[in-house]
């Protein structure tokens, strides 16, 4: 293999993995505070379509990025209100958010499907995604606010007793996760494959969710995991093109199989599981209880 070929492969891996890093790191922070948001796919699609429509209408990348982020704030804000204030079931609400996002994005984007646009250079986002993972890692382990987020996720009653505002903390982490998903969607429709088509995220939200478990809620492992998932997908394409016979369906299942293996591994060791998984994940918090 020549150097150029390898650089080319790395380039494709970087471009294709970045949306997983964005969506994954956002969900990681949300889950660290004890909330499971299954709405990533819907958030990504709405972020993608909002950014795309704004770009078509205004031609301005800044506005489109801004509105895409706003869409994430609004949708994840609604999700936060439902699960935190009304204490709805997080899994059901998250699934509803995904279904809602798929429908809403299809409806909004109907008139804009097939409009040609000029894509944005993906490298800005790639650099930002790396910085983001390191900042989140630093935030969660080295800052006071990060420790509060983790405390809220580990035991919300104790965190409340210590004087921390559980609801407010979770609002912030949910909205952070929502914005990251929107960015992932924006990246897909503006940089990765500059176009809008219904359902164009094609299940990447679910892979990002699997990734958080795969990473056992650790930011640096999330980055490594994302690049393993992305790298395997691109490598199998390269091998196919060289003429090596591979079971393609198997590689499509890879992320999920890998996550299952990690789940089996961590759940077989109670201590290991306790150390990484937030204890209050998916448990509703009732004030004054």
């Amino acid at each position, binding site marked *: 293999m020549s150097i150029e*070929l390898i650089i*080319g*492969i790395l*380039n*494709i891996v970087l*471009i*294709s993995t970045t*949306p997983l890093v964005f969506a994954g790191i956002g969900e990681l922070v949300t889950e660290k505070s004890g909330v499971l948001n299954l709405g990533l796919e819907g958030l990504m699609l709405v972020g993608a379509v909002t950014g795309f429509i704004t770009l078509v209408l205004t031609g301005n990348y800044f506005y489109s990025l801004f509105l895409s982020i706003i869409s994430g704030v609004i949708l994840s804000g609604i999700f936060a209100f*439902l699960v935190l*204030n*009304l204490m709805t079931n997080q899994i059901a609400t998250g699934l509803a958010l995904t279904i809602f996002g798929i429908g809403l994005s*299809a409806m909004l*984007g*109907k*008139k804009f*499907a*097939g409009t*040609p646009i000029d*894509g944005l250079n993906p490298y800005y986002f790639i650099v930002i995604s790396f910085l983001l993972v390191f900042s989140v890692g630093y935030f969660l382990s080295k800052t006071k606010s990060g420790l509060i987020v983790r405390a809220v996720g580990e035991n919300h009653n104790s965190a409340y007793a210590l004087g921390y505002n559980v609801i407010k903390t979770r609002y912030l982490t949910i909205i952070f996760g929502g914005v990251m998903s929107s960015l992932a969607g924006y990246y*897909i429709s503006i940089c*990765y*494959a*500059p*176009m809008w*088509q*219904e*359902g*164009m*995220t*094609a299940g*990447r939200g679910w892979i990002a969710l699997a990734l958080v478990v795969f990473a056992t809620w650790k930011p640096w492992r999330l980055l490594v995991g994302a690049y393993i998932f992305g790298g395997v*997908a*691109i490598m199998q*394409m*390269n091998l*196919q*093109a*060289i*003429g090596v*016979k591979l*079971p*393609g*369906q198997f590689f*499509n299942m890879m992320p999920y199989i890998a996550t299952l293996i990690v789940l089996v591994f961590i759940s077989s060791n109670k201590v290991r599981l306790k150390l990484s998984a937030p204890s209050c994940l998916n448990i509703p918090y009732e004030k004054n209880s």
Partner: protein
Amino acid sequence: MKKQSLVLVVIAAIVVIAGIFFITNQNIQKDVSDDQKKIGFIYIGPPGDHGWTYMHDVGRQYLEKELGDSVSTTYIENVPENADAVRSIRKLAESGHDLIFTTSFNYMDQTLEVASEFPDVKFEHATGFKRADNVSTYSARFYEGRTVIGHIAGKMTETNTIGYIVSFPIPEVIRGINAFYLAASKVNPDVKIKIIWVYSWYDPGKEADAANTLINQGADIIVQHTDSYAPCQAAEKAGVLAFGQASNQEAFCPNAHMTAIEDIWGPYYAAKAQAVVDGTWSSEDTWQGFKDGMVEMSPYNEKLLSSDLIAEAKAIEEGIENGTIHSFEGPIYNQAGELVVKEGEVADDGMLASMMFYVQGIDGEVPQ
């Protein structure tokens, strides 16, 4: 407080859902006068996909324009290929439709199921092979277009490497690869094709990755049998050439798009609707290509192709139309070196319909 707001949310949700049902029902149960024939369509995707469903919708609009007031058309989009399809097809049949087109391969059993319940309603199933007294099947010979683009690719490639992105290993796709390779290797014996299966009809990100991977491995022409225009866009960005898929995609990649194979359903839809109006409809199997205008080539890109090459491409179109050229002319060998089509003969429709092998010269194996 909390209970009240919960109740409010539930009421709001009910109102929204009721509203959605009201609107969709309105859409489907348009009132029409009795002498008008109602034609229904079931789509797998949205009409805005600029590929497969888009071209079926163009066909539907053509039908409406041709037949005018004697028909009215309705469609249901994004119908999944599962039990949901039965519900959607039955909905059209129950609401007084006379002719229903189901436009994807995996609606096959669902179409037959509903057809057996409504013997007076006529059904047309695209790309399938199961028929009944009130169910016809129809498809297009897309592979004829593959022969044309294979010829162009064989002449245009400088690296002698062509990247081919494909969805699923089914006969239609394999037939396309073989037709393409036979035409390309005829004009350029050194040509190699690199094939990537993405196992999806539609995933723009993955299709772009596959295109970039092929370009990175030295392909200077990208061919696709998937539904989005991401590969063509990726080719444009990398400065290599490509062909569009199902519809003219030149707007998305003007400096890469040499031509595209277009699916033209309009005249067929109009003819079948007319047959229903006249009462002459009968169950049959239709498989048409260039000759009947069901497959067409998009305008050849004059910026990229020489006028000589465009003339050659048009000559192939014409040859296929009048029968002097066939996409699968013998001698054709399979990868094991066995003669599958004898010299002087052409592959028959039976072989084409069930083609699951690569011809000699293609590297790799057909995935199982």
